[in-house]
């Protein structure tokens, strides 16, 4: 990753020759690489006027692809890998257009850099299931352009026209049977102009895309050799932990560190700013265990007199009251008063409650910073490199171009490493600032994360539905109460008329056709930091919508899938959801009506992030908990770039989705304090909670690919609960399920 960083710097600041030299040094013996600096092409004897102006959003291939003399193709991935498979999928896309030999492809995570920003979002990030959706064409073009340059080099050497050459598996073949490996052409190819436009393959020409490739990082993750951010070990490195206030925004009144300082290996104890205007006490030591032990001996008196102490019980009471009043309009169709004219017998009123949820990725939060006075280096498993990079520069008083930011492999994230205020990186930088020249690794012990906030917000939904004589909803009034995720962040500009669409997504944009439809939202301000949690608003909105739809289907005595089909608008936007439902129908037809006594099948269908998903879950009850025998998922995600990853994301993603369903899946606050500490009381799904089998079916498609990271999550909880309702006759509107 050091090499790639040199490259980005080199693009802007150094001459091509100097740059090549620097690269060779940094790469430790790598002699020639396919590097091309457009800004200095004149040095290669090409007049600037001969170079076509770069098209909009043109990415220099050399920042992304390096062909080495020994035929390795090293590809930079412009975003974090934390399980979703992008470290394999984006190189796969590039390698296909490049006609590379897949066994020679090496994937690296790119550092923070302008060139690695998401082409659509304009910042370097992972989110919104956009990794493939936004970078598919970008990586294809990079591959095709690099291929064209290699072909150009071969053609020049053979003195033939490039269009008489063809490529396959890392080799250029000439018209007279000549052949040269990519590695043999890399040096010449670097002198070829970057083509302004290239022809991309027709889907029928794909050799890798759509075929299913195993992950490139698998072996290193199975033999312990892969280094995550927390595994970083640098010469002279010290480790820090922080004692943070028990309520957000509280400050240190005084602290007694006499016992803590006596622990052998403790270097420094001092106050630092922490999130939400609070302060904390940092302990820096030679190792993690020393720092942790010293923190246990620290005595801190906190001043929480000026901060609100949130309390889940009181908040739910307030939220329930709010839900009985209209909020800000998020959708309005037809006659808003229609619901008031519905006869009581045709009226369904439902109230739902969802608690705070912690992401709790397996790898505890961490960041390493070394401050060198006029420069700094950062190592972080970051979903938001652009923000985190700027935050460190800000704390250290440096310009961002003086801060080198390495993207480290991360052990999960689910949104927790995409934090607009970069509070973890700010803490790390605040501590490192005191230790010039010494790398400081800040580690958040598990308890810090479970109690540290940045949760999926708690929500209350209140829904009133008026049914027509056809059994379909004719009037629908829906109020959602939940903290805004965007307010107070750089994304606040995305809010419209005070409405944060991430609170109501999946409701206000539902594919179900209801003539008189109104959605309003309240965004209470609460002293609990909140954050997107994998699939964001769809975690709760899909649960509400899909349990209600199945309830309405039962009331109308219609098949659940047929009822959905009847109610979904027939429009281009609903095509993918309908395709997923059709495929699910086909794939479950043989078994869904033949399950054993004591089992039931529930369904859910929901589109999120452009991907349509339908799900069936076969469930029984064991020891008061749902036991999930089988889950079938049908998905329309456009072209499935790596079907193996799509399958994997759905198989595991539905089990992740159970985080909010199973008992123990909640964060609660009492008088400002979080009541859970660790996985002993905040309990995510373990193997016995997960479905025994998940079969995934992909709708064949040649349309633009959409994401698969988040769309598995929303469907599972409603599908399981719909099955439970069939077994018990009860409705479940409060999550998690404490008892069935």
């Amino acid at each position: 990753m050091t090499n790639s960083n040199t490259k980005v710097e080199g693009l802007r600041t150094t001459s091509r020759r100097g740059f090549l030299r620097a690269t060779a040094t940094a790469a430790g013996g790598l002699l020639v690489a396919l590097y091309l600096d457009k800004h200095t092409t004149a040095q290669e004897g090409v007049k600037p006027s001969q170079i076509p102006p770069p098209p909009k959003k043109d990415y220099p291939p050399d920042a992304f692809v390096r062909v080495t003399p020994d035929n390795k193709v090293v590809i930079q991935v412009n975003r974090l890998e934390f399980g979703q498979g992008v470290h394999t999928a984006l190189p796969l896309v590039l390698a296909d257009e490049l006609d590379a030999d897949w066994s020679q492809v090496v994937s690296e995570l790119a550092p923070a850099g302008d060139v690695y920003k998401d082409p659509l979002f304009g910042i370097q990030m992972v989110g919104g299931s956009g990794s493939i959706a936004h970078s598919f064409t970008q990586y294809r073009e990079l591959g095709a352009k690099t291929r064209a340059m290699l072909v150009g080099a071969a053609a020049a050497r053979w003195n033939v026209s490039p269009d008489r050459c063809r490529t396959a598996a890392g080799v250029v073949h000439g018209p007279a049977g000549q052949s040269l490996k990519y590695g043999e052409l890399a040096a010449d190819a670097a002198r070829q102009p970057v083509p302004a436009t290239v022809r991309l393959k027709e889907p029928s020409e794909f050799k890798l895309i759509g075929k299913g490739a195993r992950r490139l990082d698998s072996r290193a993750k199975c033999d312990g050799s892969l280094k995550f951010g927390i595994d970083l070990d640098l010469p002279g490195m010290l480790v820090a932990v922080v004692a943070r206030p028990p309520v957000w925004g509280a400050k240190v009144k005084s602290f007694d560190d006499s016992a803590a300082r006596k622990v052998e290996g403790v270097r420094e104890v001092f106050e630092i700013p922490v999130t939400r205007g609070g302060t904390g006490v940092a302990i820096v030591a030679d190792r993690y265990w020393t720092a942790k032990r010293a923190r246990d001996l620290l005595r801190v008196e906190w001043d929480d007199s000026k901060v609100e102490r949130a309390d889940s019980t009181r908040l739910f009471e307030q939220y329930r009251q709010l839900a009985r009043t209209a909020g800000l309009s998020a959708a309005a169709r037809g006659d808003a008063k229609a619901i008031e004219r519905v006869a009581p017998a045709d009226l369904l009123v439902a109230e739902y409650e969802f608690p705070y949820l912690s992401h709790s990725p397996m790898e505890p939060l961490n960041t390493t910073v070394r401050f060198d006075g006029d420069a700094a280096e950062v190592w972080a498993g970051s979903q938001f490199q652009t923000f985190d990079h700027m935050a460190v520069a800000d704390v250290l008083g440096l310009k961002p171009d003086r801060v080198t930011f390495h993207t480290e492999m991360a052990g999960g994230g689910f949104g927790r490493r995409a934090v607009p205020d970069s509070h973890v990186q700010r803490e790390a930088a605040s501590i490192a600032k005191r230790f010039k020249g010494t790398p400081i690794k800040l580690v958040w012990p598990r308890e810090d994360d479970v109690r540290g906030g940045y949760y999926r917000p708690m929500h209350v939904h209140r829904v009133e539905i008026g049914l027509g004589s056809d059994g379909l909803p004719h009037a629908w009034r829906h109020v959602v109460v939940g903290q805004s995720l965007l307010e107070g962040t750089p994304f606040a500009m995305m809010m419209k008329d005070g409405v944060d669409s991430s609170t109501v997504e999946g409701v206000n944009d539902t594919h179900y056709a209801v003539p008189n439809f109104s959605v309003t939202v309240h965004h209470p301000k609460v002293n609990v930091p909140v954050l997107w949690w994998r699939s964001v608003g769809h975690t709760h909105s899909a649960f509400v919508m899909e349990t209600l739809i199945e309830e309405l289907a039962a009331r109308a005595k219609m098949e659940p899938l047929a009822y959905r089909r009847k109610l979904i608008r027939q429009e281009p936007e609903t095509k993918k959801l309908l395709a997923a439902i059709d495929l699910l129908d086909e794939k479950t037809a043989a078994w869904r009506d033949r399950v054993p006594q004591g089992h039931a099948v529930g369904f859910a269908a929901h589109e999120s992030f452009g991907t349509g998903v339908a799900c069936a879950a076969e469930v029984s009850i064991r020891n008061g908990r749902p036991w999930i025998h089988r889950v079938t998922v049908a998905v329309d995600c456009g072209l499935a770039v790596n079907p193996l990853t799509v399958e994997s994301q759905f198989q595991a993603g539905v089990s992740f989705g159970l985080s909010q369903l199973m008992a123990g899946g909640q964060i609660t606050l009492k008088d400002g304090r979080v009541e859970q500490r660790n996985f002993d009381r905040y309990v995510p799904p373990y193997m016995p909670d997960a479905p025994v089998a998940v079969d995934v079916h992909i709708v064949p498609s040649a349309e633009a690919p959409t994401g698969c990271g988040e769309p598995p999550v929303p469907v599972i909880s409603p599908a399981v609960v719909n099955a439970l309702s069939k077994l018990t006759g009860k409705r479940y509107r409060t999550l998690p399920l404490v008892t069935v």
Partner: protein
Amino acid sequence: MAKYQLNVNGQSREVSADPSTPLLWVLREDLKMTGTKFGCGVSACGACTVHVAGVATRSCVVPIALLGERPVVTIEAMAQDPVGRAVQDAWVEKDVVQCGYCQSGQIMTAVALLRHTPRPTDANIDESLGGNLCRCATYVRIREAVHLAAQKLK
């Protein structure tokens, strides 16, 4: 601080550590063997699982002072172990990992299971691996991979 003589992956290693230091942190910070992962520190997630005298053990709650002479085996030794290699191969073949952070612990637990139960049932697997948290929730494929490893070892 006290000196301890450890047997890790068949090698004798001397470390100087506070007696309360968990084996996990001795492995990670003193011996620089970071394949064993820190997940919770309270024996609730299994990411830190190693074999102590052949038994799958949560290294985050074993103080180094209590380890004695019992040999420790970690993920770093699995590629050279026939059962360990079979499990790793099965994991790769089934493309189990996502973020991968918990998988050292999953694999160490699976190896211990297959040593005493060469043909595990789903119930055996649930019982043995049921305490190993995978936050990506790759459980379906973990189960398949354990069965595949058992077949490979026949």
